């Protein structure tokens, strides 16, 4: 056995992160580590990789107990973590990143650059990676950066590799590439721990599965012997997990009032003649591959990247959105893909975030009315079931799902009528996803128009009344909500018959 973790415990201050986690890894297997956000996956992996120390429990590495104090110690015995792209130095070359901290030396301590580049090139060629050893990392795609991380991890003969959500920022083809690499690692008798939120990719990659819930292992066993439904049950801990299915509000017979109409939206190289409309009471899905122009459509409507050509009508009136301010004034809201970067001020309290877009509504005589703010915030915490102690709690302390609800609260308080959701469930665990869908449904029933961008086709089929498909900057199809994944993919990925 490669790795054997027994009853690992870890506390941070008053919070128990791990209360009894068990995990065994054999050489030559891909082991999936699953669990909701906050279940303790990352903490457990940080312990394995030497980034933090365990409080109690045993960690056996090739049958000997080990205490790892630093990631360097973990690397020395053959454990490496494939980080997400943020762990690379973008201005250095691929080779420099691969050998960062372990550069081959010449006498006198000088870096042997030629040997470094040669070794990197050999490593790249051996795995048939599409990389240049002397190319700069900042020019690479997210998948390319992931490959550099992998090179770094396997460079000096690791026997256990940990992948932490490697595909979360990758497109379908790039994901396939990562899978292929993971399989070759398995063929070389390495152990692989693979963390993912994408339940649909489990079967493509895993041999065995371990599920954590509330810091403890609740299931471990071969993947072939467990259904996806059972996996979800183990993750959320509830007996019955109904797959969410929204009941459409607006039957095609009586559609609501048109709230947003986009006509001929064009931005050089990004968007080509994008036209569609959103009606009150409906949720419209926007599907497409990475780079198809879905996020760009949202950004253009919201005034972040004003389009070169095209017209936007809100409730029948033409509106020029040259900045988010213009869009917000017209009643448009955008819940961005990256809540932490562009959605919330994480180091400020919930109250400040809820009221940020509409401070005049809580002002009296030019001063902020703190009682009104407290009342408003408490109201939204209750209405949207945000799990927070009070409005004074910092937004950064909320889980992903609750952060998403906080973003929605901000726009509700601004009385937005048109909601653009860009990947609303990214980084949100299964239970919270259903709550976010229910909130979107409530918005629609309350008379708002909702556009939902998602890479998870299943989610679009669960939620949307109709689905627009984009490919290479243009809309290639409009499908009914009850379509199939295959149908969506046909228009998203293939040269469509709908036009040149």
């Amino acid at each position, binding site marked *: 056995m490669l790795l054997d973790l027994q009853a690992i415990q870890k506390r941070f201050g008053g919070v128990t992160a791990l209360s009894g986690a068990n995990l065994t890894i054999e050489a030559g297997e891909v082991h999936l580590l699953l669990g909701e956000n906050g279940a303790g996956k990352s903490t457990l992996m940080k312990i394995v990789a030497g980034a933090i120390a365990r409080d109690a429990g045993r960690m056996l590495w090739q049958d000997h107990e080990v205490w790892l104090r630093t990631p360097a110690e973990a690397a020395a015995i053959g454990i490496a973590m494939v980080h997400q792209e943020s762990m690379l130095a973008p201005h250095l070359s691929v080779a420099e990143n691969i050998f960062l901290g372990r550069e081959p030396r010449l006498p006198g301590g000088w870096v042997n650059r030629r040997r470094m580049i040669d070794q990197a090139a050999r490593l790249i060629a051996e795995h048939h990676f599409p990389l240049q050893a002397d190319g700069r990392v900042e020019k690479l795609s997210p998948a390319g950066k992931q490959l550099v991380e992998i090179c770094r991890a396997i460079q000096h003969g690791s026997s256990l590799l940990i992948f932490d959500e490697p595909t979360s920022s990758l497109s379908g083809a790039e994901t396939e590439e990562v899978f292929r690499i993971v399989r070759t690692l398995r063929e070389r008798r390495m152990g692989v721990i693979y963390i993912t939120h994408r339940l649909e990719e489990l079967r493509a990659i895993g041999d065995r599965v371990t599920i954590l819930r509330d810091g403890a292992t609740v299931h471990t066993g071969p993947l072939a012997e467990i259904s996806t439904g059972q996996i979800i049950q183990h993750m959320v801990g509830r007996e019955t997990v109904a797959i969410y299915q929204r009941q459409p509000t607006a039957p095609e017979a009586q559609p609501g009032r048109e709230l947003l109409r986009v006509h001929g939206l064009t931005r050089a190289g990004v968007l080509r003649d994008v036209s569609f409309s959103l009606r009150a009471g409906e949720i419209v899905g926007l599907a497409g591959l990475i780079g198809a122009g879905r996020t760009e459509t949202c950004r253009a409507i919201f005034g972040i990247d004003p389009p070169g050509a095209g017209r936007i009508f809100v409730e029948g009136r033409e509106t020029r959105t040259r900045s988010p301010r213009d869009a917000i004034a017209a009643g448009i809201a955008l819940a961005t893909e990256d809540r932490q970067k*562009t959605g919330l001020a994480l180091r400020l309290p919930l109250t400040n975030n809820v009221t*940020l877009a509409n401070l005049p509504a809580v*002002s009296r005589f030019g001063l902020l009315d703190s009682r009104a703010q407290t009342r408003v915030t408490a109201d939204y915490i209750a209405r949207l079931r945000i799990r927070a102690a009070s409005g004074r709690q910092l937004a950064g302390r909320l889980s992903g799902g609750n952060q998403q609800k906080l973003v929605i609260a901000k726009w509700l308080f601004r009385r937005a009528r048109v909601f653009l959701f860009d990947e609303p469930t990214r980084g949100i665990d299964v239970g919270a996803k259903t709550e976010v869908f229910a909130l979107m449904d409530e918005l629609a029933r309350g008379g708002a128009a909702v556009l939902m961008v998602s890479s998870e086709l299943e989610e679009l089929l669960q939620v949307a009344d109709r689905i627009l498909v984009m490919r290479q900057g243009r809309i290639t199809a409009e499908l009914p909500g009850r379509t199939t994944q295959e149908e969506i993919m046909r228009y998203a990925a293939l040269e469509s018959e709908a036009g040149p």
Partner: protein
Amino acid sequence: MIERLLPFVTLIVLFVALSIASPHFLTQTNLASLVRQTAVINIMSLGMTAIIIAGGIDLSVGAIMAMGGVLGAMAMAHGMSVPAGIAIGIAAGLFWGAVNGALTTRLRIAPFIVTLGTLGIIRGLTLILTNGLPVHGVPRGFSFLGEGNLLGVPFTLWVLVACALAMHVTLEHTRLGRYAFAIGSNLDAAIYAGVPVAFHTTAVYALGGMLTGLAGMIEASRLMTGQPTAGNGYELQAIAAVVIGGGSLHGGEGSVIGTLIGAFIMGVLANGSDLLGVSPYLQQAIIGAVIILAVTVDEFRKRRV
């Protein structure tokens, strides 16, 4: 909680220790001179607090201070009244603050760079304006601002309290303050929430400039001249006061009360060292160590929470 109170406790401990160590510390004369010495840095630091909360920094405050003092003194030397002269000093500060704000927001250059540039420009212009010589001939009544007493308390203390209250209300109870925190905490989120970022950032720099102009007039009043070289290096003291008081150079954090405590800690350290005959060279080293210590404690507090 203990860590949060630490700057305050430090100040009290310093006070008590110095009262015991030196019979001259807790006297009215000494406390009054302590207040007068620290008022200038204190008032500048209030402006710096808002700027740092908004995620910015202003390295040009020392130069702005000198230009404010020089222009105000020149106006008075040419026969303008004292209030008018003070108003001109403040207006000069406001102008340069607004220039700093406009340059960072419109040109999208880091405020560190912009204000490093304006530091040179403003200082240079001030020296050209005065030929490098102090401006004399201010009316005698002007000394009241920096040296006078009102109800038995240095007038500068009243000015400081008024400015601190106004800044506290601005930061905690107005839209400008709320937007400053939001901009400093997450600029993109503020833009995406429709906050008029450029306007409010500029306003914060202008506000800081105003207070700096006022500080320049107080300094000029204490010296009874407009010194083109005044305020050299004050920007670092102002930044240090904010940081000792819990402000974060990453933006989004800071408070008026914290900054006041930070500025007073440095003032008391300097004053106490003088009384105890500690070499001024060593004083600099002590204050430097205090800055690092304060920020270290603050970082530990944040990490633990």
